[in-house]
């Protein structure tokens, strides 16, 4: 039985390759169409991935600063620091003493640091720089942490750039929603295109299929080679799309556009933002997705053309 299944599978694979060799034009057309479809999807994924990484960089910059009242004794500062660390949503807390704040300002002012001459560090307030856990880096999460911070009688003021955080949270929400909707629509469209293209391949072999039915080929032995062809076409089309996308990314996006055609201001703005290619894991998922599309497309197409009849 096991031997029979192995023979059946190896025969189906052999026939799939023979069929492909004997029908090169429709097969290449299908691979091309799958390739273009998957290129559109991969390009969308690349943009989505880079936008997500940009949002992540911005997200990491979200922090809360709590200014201490003047004259809080050092022992109490230690106690407050400990209690803030215990708050839900707080990832890390850093104490900034007045002299740390002064050094920071000097560094920021650079050559104009002489403006600070005569100012004693004691004028500046002590503060805590509070980094939040990932789940709390949004409007609601921050408000919750800020609410708890405001309960400390030693804290004078809490700053977190409320407007910016709210706008950012809105952008992230809209982007994620768009990503899912667009991605979903794109996938449905791709499935439709791929299954119709594979139908063309199958319909071009209508006579052959009819004869298979006549001579008593089993439904599985008729269908399985088509499924294997679908898998192979899906893999080749998607592989081509990924290679082409990498070429576009490497030659056009990374060098030509970002380094030649950007204005100096834009270049500076983008300098801190890396333009990334899709991670290996995503590439593998897209390749497997392409194979599943091919398989599913063949399956849908076969329901129409491979129905067992006369």
């Amino acid at each position, binding site marked *: 039985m096991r031997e029979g299944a192995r023979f059946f599978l190896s025969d189906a694979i052999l026939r799939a390759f023979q069929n492909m060799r004997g029908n090169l034009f429709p097969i290449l057309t299908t691979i091309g169409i799958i390739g273009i479809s998957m290129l559109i999807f991969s390009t969308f994924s690349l943009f989505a991935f880079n936008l997500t990484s940009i949002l992540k960089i911005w997200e990491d910059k979200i922090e809360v600063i709590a200014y201490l009242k003047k004259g809080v004794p050092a022992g109490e500062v230690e106690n407050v620091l400990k209690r803030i660390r215990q708050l839900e949503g707080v990832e890390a807390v850093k104490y900034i003493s007045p002299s740390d704040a002064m050094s920071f300002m000097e560094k920021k002012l650079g050559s104009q640091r002489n403006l600070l001459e005569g100012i004693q560090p004691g004028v500046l307030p002590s503060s805590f720089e509070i980094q939040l856990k990932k789940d709390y880096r949004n409007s609601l999460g921050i408000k919750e942490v800020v609410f708890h911070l405001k309960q400390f009688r030693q804290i004078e003021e809490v700053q977190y750039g409320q407007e910016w955080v709210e706008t950012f949270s809105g952008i992230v929400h809209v982007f994620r929603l768009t990503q899912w909707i667009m991605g979903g629509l794109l996938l449905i469209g791709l499935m439709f295109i791929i299954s119709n293209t594979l139908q063309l391949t199958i319909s071009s072999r209508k006579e*052959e299929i009819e004869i298979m039915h006549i001579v*008593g080929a*089993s*439904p599985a032995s*008729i269908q399985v080679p088509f499924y294997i062809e679908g898998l192979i076409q899906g893999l080749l089309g998607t592989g081509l799309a990924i290679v082409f996308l990498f070429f576009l990314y490497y030659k056009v996006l990374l060098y030509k556009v970002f380094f030649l055609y950007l204005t100096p201001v834009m270049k500076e703005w983008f300098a801190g933002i890396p333009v990334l290619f899709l991670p290996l894991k995503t590439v593998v998922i897209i390749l497997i997705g392409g194979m599943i599309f091919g398989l599913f497309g063949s399956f849908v197409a076969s329901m129409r053309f491979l129905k*067992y009849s*006369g």
Partner: protein
Amino acid sequence: MIQLDHVFKVYPSQIAALSDVSLEISSGEFTFIAGPSGSGKTTLLRILFGAERPTSGEVTVNSMRITENHFRKIYQLRRTMGFVFQDFKLLKDRTVGENIAFALRVTGHPQKDIQPRVSEVLQWVGLQEREKDSVLTLSAGEQQRVAIARALVHTPPLLLADEPTGNLDAQMAADVMKIFAALHRHGTTIVFATNDTELTKHYPYRAIYLENGRKVEK
């Protein structure tokens, strides 16, 4: 070998292709199904072949009842019979040998058994010299002989032929008939549909006549 019991076939358009047809064909028999176009010959053969189901009645072929339950395993029935069509149904982009080998390949025969069997059946139909030729280079009569060879490749005990001489001139038709007669002598059961009632008179075989889907006596 074949048994039809009060078989009706009515198409959705309410056209009755077969009305109350009952018949029995024994193993090794040569039977003509004769009648004008539209008399139900092709429908009868398609039912025997498992390509269509009767609307009502019982059909048994090679001990298998052609019912809904068996419809999914119809390919097993088809391996016990050969079918020859009026329009040959050959793959035009392949050679004579490839057309025959195709039938064996898609039914899972080991590669080593295919070539000897192809040569054997081509010898049977007298086309052993044309094995490597494209089917497009053959005459209509030769193409029909290739179709017969393909139908014989599984050594079926039953051969169904739907007007196999319909597209052939008298000489070619006579050559093809000789092959059917030889197969019959070797014990193959043959059901031969034709609208040429004269043909049925030239051979000493039983003829069943159909008109408007009904069996008639002549």
